[in-house]
């Protein structure tokens, strides 16, 4: 296996191998999950197999995270530059871009050409949507980088889940406003994921549009022209999805509606668990403190990190947004999720269980120490929560 040599601050020479090097291929293969169900359906004739990826995501993944546990290893800083420059890692993020298109086209072909029962049709659309939701994750990793190639690939892959505004919204909006009440993509304590979605989905689009409008205004360019980066990605979405409807028939309209919604829902789910209740404090000048690792929930669970390009090392990501996935670090005393994202999504979908698992964990964080004034609280639940935890407003 490829190794890297470096020198520690005390002068000691080190040799480092990335044990996860080849396992990152899982992040490349994971978006192809619709084909697993399609293949088994084709082999057996049993449509129930089309739903198998749902079991992989919502049953096998949380169990694997539980069994395999966490990995808190960090690459030594002395080799991070070499690790970042190793083209292998970034090539993986390039390869996965066409695979997202192939996964959607393959699932659409199957939905449009097979005699499917209504439930397996919906199930296949949901599975395809989840796979395309992973495309937002791919666009996320690529979109944070400085190179023109990676930024262009981000805009291209975001066309698959019909979420072209994400690149602007996330990098320029969410990262700027994260863990503040102003951020539509940071969930508040006491806010259910369903209420959050109603704020996050339109709020994120509006913020992206406003940022792009401001930029184009400075450049004296038309908001409705080819320079609008949101419209660039959206036009690719229209071409792709209209093409699928033309190729496979009107049945693709409900398929794509379900697909798009569940792709967006993956991002909503991730956003919900990533910053729940966390709050940056205001400084004397009235501005929010800079984003620190304590402003994101982190997870070191091995399996789900390997299929998500290390997205769950979210604390380091927000503190250092351009750091590449292979170099993201664990820190001690971080807000830590008890399972990987897939398990946490399940909890989030049952708000009662989510509050049970997370509210005390949130208040127990060292920088909060039970003080609700240091928490991003849902305004409509403010009175109830302050009363529940015996604190005066």
């Amino acid at each position, binding site marked *: 296996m490829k190794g890297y040599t470096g020198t520690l601050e005390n002068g000691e020479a080190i040799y480092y191998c990335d044990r996860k090097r080849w396992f990152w291929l899982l992040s490349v293969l994971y978006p192809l999950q619709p084909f697993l169900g399609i293949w088994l359906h084709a082999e057996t004739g049993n449509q129930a197999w089309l739903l198998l990826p749902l079991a992989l995501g919502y049953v096998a993944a949380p169990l694997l995270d539980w069994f395999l546990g966490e990995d808190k290893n960090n690459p030594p800083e002395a080799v991070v530059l070499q690790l970042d420059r190793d083209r292998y890692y970034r090539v993986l993020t390039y390869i996965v871009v066409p695979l997202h298109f192939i996964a959607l086209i393959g699932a659409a072909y199957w939905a449009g050409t097979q005699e499917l029962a209504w439930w397996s049709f919906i199930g296949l659309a949901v599975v395809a949507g989840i796979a395309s939701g992973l495309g937002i994750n791919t666009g996320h990793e690529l979109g944070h980088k*400085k190179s023109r190639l990676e930024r262009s690939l981000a805009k291209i892959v975001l066309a698959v889940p019909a979420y072209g505004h994400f690149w602007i919204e996330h990098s*320029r909006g969410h990262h*700027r406003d994260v863990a503040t009440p102003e951020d539509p993509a940071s969930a508040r304590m006491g806010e259910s994921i369903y209420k959050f979605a109603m704020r996050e989905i339109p709020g994120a689009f509006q913020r992206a549009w406003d940022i792009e409008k401001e930029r*184009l205004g400075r450049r004296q360019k038309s908001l409705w022209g080819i320079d609008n980066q949101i419209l660039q990605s959206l036009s690719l979405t229209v071409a792709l999805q209209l093409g699928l409807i033309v190729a496979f028939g009107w049945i693709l309209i409900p398929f794509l509606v379900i697909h798009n919604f569940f792709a967006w829902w993956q991002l909503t789910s991730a956003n919900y668990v990533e910053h729940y209740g966390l709050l940056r404090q205001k400084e004397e000048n009235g501005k929010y403190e800079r984003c620190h690792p304590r402003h994101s929930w982190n997870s070191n669970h091995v399996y789900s990190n390997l299929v998500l390009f290390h997205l769950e090392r979210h604390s380091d990501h927000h*503190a250092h947004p351009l750091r590449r996935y292979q170099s993201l670090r664990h820190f001690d005393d971080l807000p830590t999720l008890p399972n990987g994202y897939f398990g946490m999504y399940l909890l989030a979908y049952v708000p009662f269980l989510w509050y049970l698992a997370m509210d005390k964990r949130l208040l127990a964080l060292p920088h909060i120490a039970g003080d609700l004034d240091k928490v991003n609280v849902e305004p409509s639940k403010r009175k109830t929560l302050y009363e529940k935890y015996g604190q005066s407003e």
Partner: protein
Amino acid sequence: MTTFRCPECGYIFSEKDGDQHEGYPPGTEFSSLPDDFACPDCSVRFKEDFEEV
């Protein structure tokens, strides 16, 4: 004409070149950027964080 650098990600704002993509033409003085100017590359450092190179 001075150059300023984002301490987090190394983004460079040169007053001489401006930043065409962001709509700041060559010759834009750093002091004339909006008060809420955030680094166009990382968005986690702001105008007051930038260091003169």
